């Protein structure tokens, strides 16, 4: 998943981050210059005949940051305030994200400056098809593979896929990911991120020499990621004793605690599609209803922030129990830099978001693979292959962290950049 709502200087941030890692890796000047910026940037106009007969012109983008390791991969965003710099930054992060789990894809991102709120479905279809027409020669299953992102939907993806297939005169289901199951989508996508989180937790426990069944955990958020994290973690023998959930009506979150461990089936029955646990029913079912931030203060072995950014911050990091041994970042950016430094100092084992929630992008890769060979695996096969990928990725990062005495977050970046740099070198580009 891409990061959203970045400030306008996100590209500079991405570059600074890279510079830091390049320093650690002692990359040569040429490689630094090559990886600091995207390899290719497309910016083009999409004229659309509107419903009222007038014509309007929309600006479209595609940025391919690096495809040394394989076809570019990244979402397409429809946003009225889209900027080229945001797209550059997001494309860069996609390169590292694919590299850290070692899937053979590069990084890309694209978008159109538009607000779907002000466009009819037909007009949106014209924008999608127009986008593909402008860039048909530079995208495709073996070049650059888009996916849904901010304000784009599987429907948009199908229109794009259909247009490219019409232009090329062939079926190319591997051109797009995020398709509905039955239309070239992959099974297991719902579970992928949450399961991926648990695969890394399992390996981390192994590395720390702790048996999962001896651990308890507390989870922030009860969305897709958290729900499947809890499911698989329970299967491993662990016990989640507390989970927080946003209450839309009251515009605040609550934490639901059951010392004997939460019952997932029970919670599912009282949770709406937005992951909101019904407060009253939970209390009736014997859950202790606490203020939302209490999830973080529980005496547990594992904390799993699973929904929002900035959940562990300078204000509350000191309230984390001394029993906590692992923080697994299921969400994007849940730990503020200040809190991160505290956790590092306290020696808590950090599984960084980058690595921890890479199950999603890995599953997208599997969807692309299945589409390309037009043969689709069953759910278990998808999830087994996911286990393999995540486990391998974890150990690669952990090994670097151990050997180079790096914090896990730094190690993940280092290994990602290193893999891309090596591919560029091997190809003789730099």
């Amino acid at each position: 998943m891409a990061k959203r709502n970045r400030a306008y200087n996100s590209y500079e941030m991405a570059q600074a981050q890279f510079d830091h890692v390049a320093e650690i890796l002692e990359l040569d000047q040429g490689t630094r210059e090559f990886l600091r910026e995207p390899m290719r940037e497309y910016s083009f106009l999409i004229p659309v005949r509107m419903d009222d007969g007038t014509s309007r012109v929309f600006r479209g983008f595609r940025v391919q940051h690096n495809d040394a390791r394989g076809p570019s991969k990244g979402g397409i965003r429809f946003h009225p305030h889209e900027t080229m710099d945001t797209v550059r930054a997001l494309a860069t992060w996609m390169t590292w994200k694919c590299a850290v789990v070692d899937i053979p894809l590069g990084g890309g991102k694209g978008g159109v400056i538009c607000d779907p709120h002000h466009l009819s479905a037909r007009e949106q279809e014209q924008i999608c098809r127009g986008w593909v027409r402008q860039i048909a020669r530079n995208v495709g299953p073996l070049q650059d593979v888009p996916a849904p992102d901010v304000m784009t939907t599987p429907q948009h993806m199908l229109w794009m896929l259909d247009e490219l297939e019409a232009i090329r005169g062939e079926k190319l289901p591997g051109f797009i990911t995020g398709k509905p199951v039955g239309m070239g989508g992959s099974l297991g996508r719902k579970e992928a991120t949450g399961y991926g989180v648990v695969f890394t937790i399992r390996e981390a426990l192994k590395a720390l020499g702790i048996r999962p069944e001896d651990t308890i955990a507390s989870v922030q958020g009860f969305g897709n990621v958290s729900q499947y994290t809890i499911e698989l973690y329970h299967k491993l023998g662990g016990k989640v004793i507390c989970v927080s959930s946003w209450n839309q009506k009251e515009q605040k979150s609550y934490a639901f605690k059951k010392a004997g461990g939460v019952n997932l089936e029970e919670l599912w029955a009282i949770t709406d599609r937005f992951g909101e646990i019904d407060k009253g029913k939970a209390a009736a079912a014997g859950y202790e209803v606490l203020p939302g931030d209490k999830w973080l203060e529980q005496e547990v072995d594992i904390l799993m922030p699973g929904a929002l950014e900035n959940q562990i911050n300078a204000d509350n990091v000191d309230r984390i129990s001394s029993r906590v041994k692992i923080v697994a970042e299921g969400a994007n950016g849940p730990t503020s830099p200040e809190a991160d430094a505290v956790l590092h100092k306290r020696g808590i084992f950090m599984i960084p978001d980058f690595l921890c929630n890479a199950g999603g992008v890995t599953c997208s890769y599997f969807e692309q693979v299945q589409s390309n060979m037009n043969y689709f695996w069953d759910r278990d096969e998808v999830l087994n292959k996911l286990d393999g990928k995540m486990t391998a990725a974890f150990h690669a990062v952990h090994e670097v962290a151990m050997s180079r005495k790096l914090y896990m977050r730094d190690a993940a970046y280092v290994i990602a950049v290193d893999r891309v740099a090596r591919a560029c070198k091997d190809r003789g580009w730099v």
Partner: protein
Amino acid sequence: MTDSGQELDKILEGLLERSKELSCLYQVGEILRAGDVPWAKKLERILEVIPPGWQHPEVCEARLEFGGQAFQTAGFVDAPWVMEEAILIRGEEVGSLQVVYTEERMSADEGPFLLEERKLLGTIAQQVGFHLTHEELSNAYETWKSAVQSFETGEGKKWQVIVDFLRRADPQLLQRISRRMLNHLRWKGVEGLDSIPGFQRSLDHGTASSDQNQPLARQVFMDLPVPTDLVFRTASEHCADEEILFHIHSWINREKLSFLINTLEWQESSLGDITSALGRFQALQMAEKELPHSLLNVLKTALLRRFFTDQIDYVNIAKRYVSLDDFHEVAAHLIHPPNSHGKLGGKSAGIFLARKIVERMQGEHEALRGIRVPRTWYMASDGVLAFVRHNGLEDVYDRKYLELEQVRHQYPYVIQAFKTSAFPPELLNGLSLVLEKLGDRPLIVRSSSLLEDRTGSAFSGKYKSLFLANQGTKEERLAALLDAVAEVYASIFGPDPIEYRAERNLLDVHEEMGIMIQEVVGTRVGQYFLPAFSGVAFSNNEFRWSPRIKREDGLVRLVLGLGTRAVDRVSDDYPVLLAPGQPRLRVNATPEEVLRYSPKKVDLINLETRSFETVLVSDLLKEHGNELPLIRRMVSLVEHDEIRRPSGLLEDLSRKDAVVTFEGLVQDTPFLAQMATLLKVLRETMGMPVDIEFASDGSHLYLLQCRPQSYTEGSAPATIPRDLPRNRVLFTAHRYVSNGQIPEITHVVWVDPEEYGNLPELSDLKGVGKAVGRLNKLLPKRRFILMGPGRWGSRGDIRLGVSVTYSDINNTALLVEIAHRTGKYVPDLSFGTHFFQDLVEARIRYLPLFPGEPETFLNEPFFHKAENLLPELLPEFSHLAHVVKVVEIPREAEGRILRVLMNAEMDEAVGLLADPGPHPELPGPSAGPSGRIVAPEPPPEEHWQWRIRMAEKLASRMDPERFGVREIWVFGSSQNGTAGPGSDIDLLLHFVGTEDQKTSLLAWLDGWSLSLAETNYLRTGIPSDGLLDTRLLSDQDLENRTGYSVKIGAATDPARRLRMGGAEGGD
């Protein structure tokens, strides 16, 4: 034994009498029916059979007079024991029938006669009358037949045939028609009529239009018989035959309808009289096109006035679309107290007219075909008065003058008093009849007050509307209906409507309330009864979610089931919003948004529990997913990240994850096109934007309500100044901005969003609402604004916003809602229709702020730093001082005031700290070359503010010495802030000068009045002869507090003293 024997005798006697009477009546019938017997003979025989029918035949004699002849029994003599009945032909007395006892007999019901004998005599006289009428008509028929024959053979002129016929059949009618013809000839300017007797000499037109201030000389109209032959001979010389025929025809019709015209014109006639006159008219089976246009207009106008309203705009429009027949239907569905002079009320008038328009315009607009209106019964507005009188509840009338707190406090008791009261028998019977007709279909009892729904005062939602399941035995159903009507009646005396009326100076208007009883549109699904979908629609879209949507594209708020969730605001649910003019532009773009903002609940009637219920859409679908009408067009299915339309009948909706989107309704049915046409046609025909309620039972669309959409008359967009220094700006807004400006705000009530959200106790949350309500009464009207988190007026979940009702905020100038973004979503705005319309009506502005969005700026530190007046103003709420802040702007901003400028076209608004005085961005009033005050642009002020300023100016220029004036006060609409664009400025002057001074004072005031009228005309386009309404008060007036002097120092709406200039201070 003896007792019962006597009883038996009595009964037998009674029976004997009955049988005698019956045999008498039977014989009379036989005699009358006998053919070929001369009339005289028949009458003689009748007289013979009468005496045996009476109790004492031995002394009974009878006599009959008819057409100048008299018949009597042999022994007839005049005696004191007599009873008499008139014989009538078509209502006219033509003879009489008498019965006498020649000797005294024991006294009975009427002298010696029995009550039954009176009836018997009446019946015989009636029978004789009928027979004579029949006889006469058969004669007339013969004449008619021969006339028609001559008609057909071409002898004579057609009109002549009619005249000849009338001559024989109805000479009086012919006389009246002749007179009309004579007048018609004069009107045509035919010469030489003077010689005709009965001609009214042409009047001196000069005098009739004279401006002289003296009465016109009286001219004597002589009521001489008109020589018919002469008149028609003259007519045939000057008019075409067709013209004569046409006029005779329409005059005859007019004559026939005189009863209807008289009933309608006569102010005393009751609704009952009108209804029966209408019934008589219907029996005439007269086609509307046979009536002259002018007469038709007179009738329609009178009917509209008596049934609906005196409002001239309404009558003008409605008369074009209604026919006389339409009123039969109204009459047939009308419940009213005896001698009722009530009307049906605004809601009834609105739906009646809308329905007629829809019917009339179906030819031109195919989309309107098939739109229906549910069966509706009306209760006249004075039903409530009859109810109050019947139960001796008159005390309630005084309640509106109580303090609002008292009204609110006592209201629950009023409701109970009404509910335990009995209904007058006429209303009871009427309601019982409605239930007979409706059966056990659910129904809704709606208020339809006379003040409600009129342009300019939308009492929307102030009075109650109640749903009834209408199940069970007839008694149970009737009890429930009565209960509901009583409750709706009680709502007249509720605090909100009283507050609302007080604000609009409508308290003194006698409020009556009609009631509409409508069947609920819908179908039965399991234990539930509900429409497929319902909603409200507006001609003007005031909530445009895209710049591509124009105001005229309209707005539809659509929900599953009953429309209550679309009409009322609900804090935890959302209706689907659509713009009929832009059906493809949807509010929600992403699947997440569609899910978040789809209706989750549905209002319906549970027929088993007999109650109005709210259930989850998901539960309803689980239970009845495949039975609900149109359901496949109303929901979409959620699969993974995708939302798609149900693909076919194979999908079992009760087992799917479905979300209400109305996608199929929009894409596959003409619903939105129908809505667009309906809104357009209603707007065009009614000449104003409208607000309608509708529902569908799955096969037909029903119109439930129609009324004008309240709107401010063309408030101009404000110019937004650029490059303002940051420290002068309190806030900026960039979304959902409407047009206008609020020039001089002195106070801000700031409810801190964060502190409000952190309040731990529900009582404190509610306390904030109470504090706001109290401040609303304390702070200067329209000079303060309310700023707070989320939705003002949250009902269910008050954490979303401060819990207030309209009466708690009605004095604010602006309502600011601060919507902190949560993640990617902006909190729902409070665009509930009821509240909003009230705001528009009261010209209270509404502005949402979205802090956190790049362009939006909110100067929170200003409010944090500012001194809080709350503990000083309301010590009992001091504990909430950290949440509610009352900031006096001039004190905090070096004498500046807050000015809010809003521009809907640019979707921008700014609240800036500015120097008081004229608004530099707008040309203020300035002295023109003529010395008159000229304001070329719409003024930045409210009408009342301008008036106050002008009054102050006038006072400051007043020279007390020169004019002998001691003091000046201003009162009325200018002073209490309710002045409209055409209002007067009411002034009181304490005058102590001489007659000469008085003359020059009045001249001086007149000059002001004319100048101000001219200026006001330039400001508003409303002309007047003068804007000042001045009253001089003498010393005596003030001492005795007579006349308008009571306004000075009055408890409510007091007059305000103005600072006068003097010789030393004047300029």
